């Protein structure tokens, strides 16, 4: 259960865009064809490897329905990464991106890495938002961008992993004070903190028992 770093993610976006499906595909490699409305927030976790380092991802999948907005906002500040998802077959979910982004900028910490995801790309025949539009929105707002499918698993791993890679790079560059856990990053037990130029405390939180 030991890891070099632990990153907290949130998944946000309109209801029905496939947030829970993305998480399930990532953690369990399964697809769920029926829409189980998420109530509040659900939790998932998985270990990945970046730069040969084990990294634990803790992922909170939030409810997209408007009525849960006030609850889900509480999760922004403590997250290191966010997957902002829209549905390429439903234009309105793309149009709402600006308001989601505004929420994130307002409540999250400034260093949060945001990945824009155009989901359901398996349904290309019903496409309502072009890849270029997605790319452009991402570029204008400084986001990473990817189209994927929770159904076919296309790009799902990549989306989660490249978000982690970006965060990892930021750590290496010393952007974060990793001893401050409120950025959604935790240094694992027994890890020699990576960044050379970083000004982190680099202690292991007094957790004597290495496993």
């Amino acid at each position, binding site marked *: *259960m030991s890891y070099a770093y*632990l990153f*907290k993610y949130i998944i946000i976006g309109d209801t029905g865009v496939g947030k829970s499906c993305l998480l399930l595909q990532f953690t369990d490699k399964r697809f769920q064809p029926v829409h189980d409305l998420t109530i*509040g*927030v*659900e*939790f998932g*976790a998985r270990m990945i490897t970046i730069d040969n380092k084990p990294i*634990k991802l*803790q992922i*909170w999948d939030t409810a997209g329905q408007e009525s849960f907005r*006030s*609850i889900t*906002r*509480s*999760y*922004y*500040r*403590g997250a290191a990464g966010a997957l902002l998802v829209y549905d390429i077959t439903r234009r309105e979910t793309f149009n709402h991106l600006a308001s989601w982004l505004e929420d994130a900028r*307002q*409540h999250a910490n400034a260093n949060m890495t945001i990945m824009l995801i155009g989901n359901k790309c398996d349904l290309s025949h019903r496409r309502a938002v072009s890849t270029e539009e997605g790319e452009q929105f991402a570029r204008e707002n400084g986001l990473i961008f990817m189209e994927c499918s929770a159904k076919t698993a296309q790009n799902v791993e990549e989306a989660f992993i490249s978000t982690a890679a970006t965060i990892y790079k930021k750590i290496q560059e010393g952007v974060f004070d990793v001893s401050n*856990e*409120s950025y959604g990053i*935790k240094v694992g037990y027994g890890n020699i903190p990576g960044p050379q130029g970083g000004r982190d405390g680099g202690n292991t*939180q*007094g957790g004597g*028992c290495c*496993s």
Partner: protein
Amino acid sequence: MDLVSKYQGYVGRVFGNENSDSNEDSYVERLLDRISNGKLAEDRRTAMVELQSVVAENRGGQLAFGAMGFPVLLSVLREERDDVEMVRGALETLISALTPIDHSRGPKNEVQPALMNSDLLSREADSISLLLNLLAEDDFYVRYYTLQLLTALLTNSPTRLQEAILTIPNGIIRLMDMLLEREVIRNEALLLLTYLTREAEEIQKIVVFEGAFEKIFSIIKEEGGSDGGVVVQDCLELLNNLLRTNASNQVMLRETLGFDPLISILRLRGSAYKFTQQKTINLLSVLETIQLLIYGGQEADPSRHTNRLTNITALVKVLDQLLMLGVESQWAPVPVRCAALQCIGDLIAGHPQNRDLLATKLLGEEPNVESALNSILRIILRTSSVQEFIAADYVFKSFCEKNPDGQKLLASTLTPQPQSMTYAPYEDDVHMSFGSMLLHGLTMSESNGDLETCCRAASVLSHVLKDNLQCKEKVLRIELEAPVPTLGGSEPLMHRMVKYLALSSSMKSNDGKSSARNTYVEPVILKLLIVWLSGCPSAVQCFLDSRPHLTYLLELVSNPATTVCTRGLAAVLLGECIIYNTSTDSGKDAFSIADAISQKIGLTSYFLKFDEMQKSLLFTSAKPALSRKPLTRSTAASMAEIEDVDENEALDQKNDHPMLVSTFDLQFVNFVKQLEGDIRDKTVEIYSHPKSQVAVVPAELEQRNGEADADYIKRLKSFLERQCLEIQDLLSRNATLAEDVARTGGSGSSGHERRPSSGAERVQVETLRRDLYEASQRLEMLKTEKSQIESEAETLKNFAAKMEAELQSLSNAYNSLEQTNIQLEDEVKALRSGGSSGGGMSAKDIEALKAEAREEAQKESEAELSDLLVCLGQEQSKVERLSARLMELGEDVDKLLEDIGDDDDAGLGEDDEEDED
């Protein structure tokens, strides 16, 4: 000023205008005026101090403040942040306004100003977010008072605050940040969070998202683990709130930190013999955590089951700590030991790997190593605490459930013991096998006359035997030597158990009134026997091998001095003697048992025992397993102190003895219900089938090849006789049943004793009455049928007589024919000798004639015989149907039943007469 006058009006309306109140009103009003309108900073501060003290000391002050003060003070908090002293003062005043002054004074239903004020404050627009904002202030006291104020708000109106806090982004995050603060603030924040997370799933999740688990465990560690103070308790309470009904949080804990931090809290350090009350509470709280994880989340949550299994598998690492606390540690207080044992039971219930692991655990140090199961058995036999017995017994219950191999393992050491071993004193039993220890316990009372140990051992034995035929058979073979060698030979263990059962009943009746103990000894031993006999004919055989057993059991079923449950269980045991009976010996077969029940008890009142038992509280409130209340600051102390149930409390009519509650767990209750159904079915079946010896097989009624007529007739005759006997048998059984019906009906009508106490019951009585009416009509029909049958029997008998007479006359005719024949032959001879050769009949002709006559006679008699037999067969089946129907009849109407009684008497009279024929 506007504001103040507005609120003044409000106060007048709400609280009335008593003089004392209006004095305080005007005083508070003046102070508020000085605070909001005063020009001199110093004067405003003094006013605040005065206001605080009047609100802190005086109900009237609190009321007056509530009516007018909130807007004024909130505006101080909002607009005068720079004046730290004013802000502190305002916060202190608000805290005082929300703190109850003295509960004991004044009438109960009086308005509680503190509660009112909480409500008013939480309704003030944005008050909560204003307070949360104050948590970011630099001044220590401002943050501290703010936390206290929030806690007070939360205690008084929890849901409102929980809802409000969710709508404020970063609200909970602010509170979580307080956990990293200086100790005083941290502890206050901890307390606040425990209130905030009670039954609020979304808040629980956010708190966990914010890293609550890490923070909780690191505080616990800092505070010294289970040796720490009340802060550790608060941490654990918060932890339990986060996990209790929240599978998602359980997954989060398991997947990130794992359960190791829990193990390290359970690990006893340093002075393992010192258990302060605080330490006890801390340990109980962690044990509760373990239990919550084993339970797996909310009852209705579909993911609970998988989550539960994964948790249990991961929690197996805790087993050693649990054994330490529950079994090995001599100094752990009883509640801790109980909780640990219960966790062990939960951990192995339905989990084969964990079960097998427990079976391999060894405790103690060389040379006194023994298996953990043996140590737990010793607790069962020896503890002075009923609670501890129950918890330890639960371990065996869980271990044996659906675990035939485990049962076999335990039973393998149950072997007959030499006298010296069985009755040896208790000491130094570390080297005893499980079986010897158990047998020793079962027969303890021989040496000290106390059935308590026997009863506990019986409970364990019933787990070992449950659903395991092999073990049942094995234990059946155990013979015990007589306690006093001179008194005859050995007896089976089972008989010894029945003896103890009888002993406990007699002890009770000697006592006059029963003590708490005696309420459970009988049921526990009865449960053992019921489990033993279930599905095991040889056990039934063994039980019935001793004649007095049946008699004793029959008495116990109708013994008014014992409890509903004892009677019910005795009835169940009796029923098992019917349904699992494969014996053919008369007197011991299912028939005889059923007859004995019907004669000695009456079927209706026999089955009533089942109903009564199932209506008892024990049955209706049976739970699957032991359950505990959540530990909170207010309940913890009392839970930690309970050393044992009070005997008096146990005798309290409302609460059954905990021992009984654990005996009658849901499984056993369901098992008994199912048995009851089987018993009813089997009884009906028995009463509707004739004995095999009188079954009519048409082929057998034919004359066999080469059978002489006389033999044939003899055979038929004896067959008739047997049928006649059987008819009589059936009739007398019939009469018993009718009597039974009559008696129940009678008690129903003469029974104003029954007093329909509720409308529902009266309705029920009405329906019963209607049923009775129907039944009586059916009975009427049956009666006519019966008299028909009887008259048929009469006719048949006449037939038989007539036939005999005809046979007689036939043989007479034959004789005379023969006579004539001889004469004729003589004549022929005479004629021949006379030389005449012509005329007259030849001898051949005569022979032919004779044969013809004989044949005719035979045919006739045969036809009549078979007619008779057919009639008898018909009658037989009528009697069958009649008895079945009588079985079905429930109760009866008085009037009708008296009639029946008379008729039956008459019927019986007739029978008697027939017998004399």
